[in-house]
């Protein structure tokens, strides 16, 4: 059990997808103008990263490795991610059409989120078991969502703050992001996973 906890802490906080690995920066800057939308995007991404990591793990261990097709890994993973997004979209649409109208906006955006592919490649490099890879992917995406929500909260406050004209808008956003990354460096050493 302890190894799973360390795995989660390492993936979510120490090696945070956004602030330590610099993945998913596009949505980090683009969808963090409000906490509500950041949380919605974070939850959708969490779902897709977890499901696609399961698919990618299965593809790697039951298709690519046995048949010596490792050189096709990136292409296969991208296809798997697109399939996972499509599956999620279809499922949400079937489960609840009103829910789909509300949340459907986030789903296609996730396909081009490099964090999804990055996490899939990282868990294969880590030679993890199925449950470890699923926990790792979930924790990574929880870390992604956490940073998205924190940053959205900061940006909501920044929108009301008096910022020097030269720093208004994206510049103060990037400065805030760098300070947030420095704060997350404080987690270094807790876990090496």
């Amino acid at each position, binding site marked *: 059990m302890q190894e799973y906890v360390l795995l989660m802490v390492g993936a979510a906080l120490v090696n945070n997808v956004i602030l330590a690995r610099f993945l998913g920066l596009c949505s980090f800057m683009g969808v963090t103008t409000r906490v509500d939308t950041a949380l*919605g995007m974070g939850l959708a991404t969490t779902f897709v990263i977890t499901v696609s990591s399961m698919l990618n793990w299965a593809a790697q261990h039951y298709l690519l490795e046995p048949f010596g097709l490792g050189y096709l890994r990136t292409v296969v993973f991208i296809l798997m991610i697109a399939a996972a997004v499509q599956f999620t979209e279809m499922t949400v649409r079937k489960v609840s059409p*009103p829910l789909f*109208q509300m949340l459907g906006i986030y789903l296609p955006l996730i396909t081009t989120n490099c964090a999804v592919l990055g996490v899939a490649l990282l868990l294969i490099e880590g030679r993890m078991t199925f449950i470890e890879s699923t926990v790792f992917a979930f924790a990574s995406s929880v870390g992604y969502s956490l940073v998205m929500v924190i940053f959205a909260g900061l940006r909501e406050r920044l929108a009301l703050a008096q910022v020097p004209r030269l720093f208004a808008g994206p510049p103060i956003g990037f400065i805030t992001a760098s300070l947030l990354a420095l704060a997350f460096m404080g987690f270094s050493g807790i876990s090496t996973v």
Partner: protein
Amino acid sequence: MFDTDERLETGSTELVEGTARVVEVTGAVAWLEPEATTSCGGCAASGACGAKGIGTIANRVAARRFPLRDHPELRVGDRVVVGVRGDALVKAALTAYAMPLVTLFLGGGLAQWAWGTDATTIAASVGGLLFGLVLARLGAGRLFASGASAPRFLRRVGQAPQTCQII
């Protein structure tokens, strides 16, 4: 269905805003399609955007067409700003995404603890995911039964917002 004035009277609830275009009007019901956006939020420049193709939603907006009742003043081609309650958005996201993930991990964790093989863990995880989706369907039915989480008309594009909320 609330309109802007009712919201101002009743509420402290902040709305998440989005832009949509009227594509059909039948009586007092206007059918809207949300405007395509990319992950960078630069929907207005999507014609020159490198994220076109599999990542765009332009080819799927028709699937997200939604009605707006009691607004006979709207005409086909109008661009309007609609809002969804922020707390409803969060509840919907939790219902659709968090609930299936919880059951997925419950199933997978139990199978890993009981048998400890990858094949059984995969099967149990998939079973948990499907069970969670069924639960999500039930939860979504309750969530939307009141209709309070439906999109609301706020203003036409170009009009100044009537609130001081952060956009």
